[in-house]
């Protein structure tokens, strides 16, 4: 699925954990890893890095490290493009949704503008993370069938135990408010129908895929998908949330932050973002 992974590194305490995580991913996907650091290359840093690399990637071919100077977000994105990276791995802080190693605005820029998929890890571990519980955004969007397809491939590769696909009923309050013009039976029929429509939507997508041994739950909620996903991930202590991003975000999205932006401002768990 991913042939070339890039890991953006800064020389922080969590670098080793991130390298361990990236190492595990290239093993799973049988891919190649490159490291990107935006900053000045010094002999001390080089020595520090090679020590960490020898611990985790000693058995591999030498890992390519790209040292570049410039604006962090722009440089990382440009390098990913030049190198033909298909998955960029970043570390991020859970609380403010700020990247650990860069300022929040830089993290957002990377995630928003990246043309390749981005995996954001909020709690990288040297023992590495198992993606046992994965939540997928199944909200009805043009990109969703593709997101579900790719998610299943990812989950199969990392041996996920429990996959939840979460769907949102759009404008549920308004629809149910309208349904109150009918009798109690009619209103509860409408409620059931709204839920069933979402389940059918996901089932139809799944019927064309091969989920193999994966255990898949479909969950339906009312409300805005980003906040519902965040709530659900926290509730089941998910290890990974997968969402798709096919939006061309504009100035309006910054003025009136919504969905993806809101999700980024407070990450509920690790986040894998598929790009179209």
């Amino acid at each position: 699925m991913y042939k070339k992974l890039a890991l953006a590194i800064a020389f922080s305490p969590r670098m080793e954990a991130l390298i361990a995580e990236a190492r595990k991913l290239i093993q799973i996907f049988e891919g190649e890893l490159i490291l990107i650091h935006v900053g000045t290359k010094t002999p001390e840093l080089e020595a520090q890095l090679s020590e960490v690399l020898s611990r985790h990637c000693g058995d591999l071919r030498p890992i390519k490290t790209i040292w570049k100077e410039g604006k962090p977000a722009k440089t990382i994105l440009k390098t990913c493009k030049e190198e033909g990276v298909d998955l960029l791995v970043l570390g991020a802080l859970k609380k403010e949704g700020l990247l650990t190693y860069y300022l929040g605005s830089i993290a957002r820029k990377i995630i928003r503008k990246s043309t390749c998929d981005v995996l954001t890890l909020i709690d990288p571990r040297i023992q590495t993370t198992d993606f046992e519980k994965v939540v997928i955004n199944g909200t009805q969007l043009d990109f969703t069938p593709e997101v579900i397809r790719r998610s299943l491939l990812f989950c199969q590769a990392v041996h996920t135990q429990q996959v939840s696909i979460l769907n949102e009923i759009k404008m549920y309050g308004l629809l149910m408010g309208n349904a109150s013009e009918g009798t109690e039976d009619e209103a509860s029929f409408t409620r059931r129908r709204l839920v069933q429509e979402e389940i059918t939507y996901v089932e139809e997508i799944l019927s064309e895929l091969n989920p193999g041994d994966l255990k898949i739950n479909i969950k339906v909620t009312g409300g805005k998908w980003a906040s519902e996903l965040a709530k659900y991930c926290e509730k089941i202590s998910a290890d990974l949330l997968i969402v798709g991003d096919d939006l061309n975000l504009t100035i309006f999205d910054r003025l009136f932050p919504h969905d993806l932006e809101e999700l980024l401002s407070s990450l509920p768990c690790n986040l894998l973002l598929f790009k179209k």
Partner: protein
Amino acid sequence: METLSHHEVINLLLQLALMLIMARLFAELARKLKQPAVVGEIIAGIIMGPTVLGMAFPELFESLFETNNQTNIALDGFVQISIVLLLFIAGIEVDLQVVWSQGKNALKIGLTSMIIPILSGFVLAYAFPEFLGVNINDRIIASTFFGLSISITALAVIARILMDLDLFKTKTGLLIIAGTIIVDVVGWIIFSVILSLSDSGKTGLGVWPTIGLTLFFTVFMLTIGKGLINKVLPWTNKNLAWPGGLISLSLAICFIAASFTEYIGIHAIFGAFIIGVALGDSEHLTEKAKEILHHFINNIFAPIFFVSIGLKVNFIEGFDPMVVGIVVIVGFFTKYFGAYLGGRFAGFKRNTAMVIGFGLSARGSMDIILALIALEYGLVSESLFIGLVILALLSSIVSGPLMSWAEKLKLSNKSE
């Protein structure tokens, strides 16, 4: 504090009870005929008001609605609160997310569907103000108002039609919803501006400061205001009774915003609408809470308001077939063509554009509120008001069947 007398209290309670009973009765009848409740509620008002009851049983009508002045003032208080709450819930219905997801196409459809009726309505009213019954002393404002009033749509009515036709979740359905939301937001902004500029609502600020203030309030509420709401709501959800705390506080915020806009010279309803948008857009106002607000406002305050329309106006005395005919024809066709053209601009096939056109033509509560405020401000005559109410009712009745018809055309095209 002055209070109502024994008789006045009895009178007020009877008025409210009768209004709710009649509204329910006719809303049920409308439901049986697959029509929106608002159609039934307006008819209930016409029957209870001077038009029918006042003609057939003048003494009964008088004893119910015309003996106690104090009671009528108290009832008017209910009606005013109902209007504010209806706008509040209309604001909560606005889902900016749907607008963003539909992007430019929704903008093209929404704006074209407004521009054409506004321009046509303005030209018509400006050329024939006396015939149509717009205030000649406030000609520009009143003519703009007429254009605006035939350009507005009703989100709740459209949502219901789309649900009935099973179109809500389709691309066309969401586009119609997004277009309607744009019309709603832009429409209420324009309406607030022209109201503050009209003779009776003059704030003394002048055109540009009024526009500036209105836009400032809108942007402020949707950015910083929403940010504040996002800070306060999680706290109330966690620490106060649910949904009690949320409902009483959101209504309180609504009344504060409404009184604030009224204070700065923009009508109260605008504050209620915008605060509704800001609250509704907050992820912390759950859909369950929205549903409860809907039930509570739609089934208590909305019927009181719609019935009160019929109590205020004599639909037979003020009925002018020419005016009503012209308002209905011009209103329906300009809105339809506006939305249709918008659909075509957005690159949709003719059939889909037709569905969009009929969809956005559905009017209802919003149109009636707009018309009533204009009547109270003396911008329009009673006969024009009646025309606008009839346009709202007729369009909400015919839009569904016409959309269904246009949708079938699309199907037959597909199979060819």
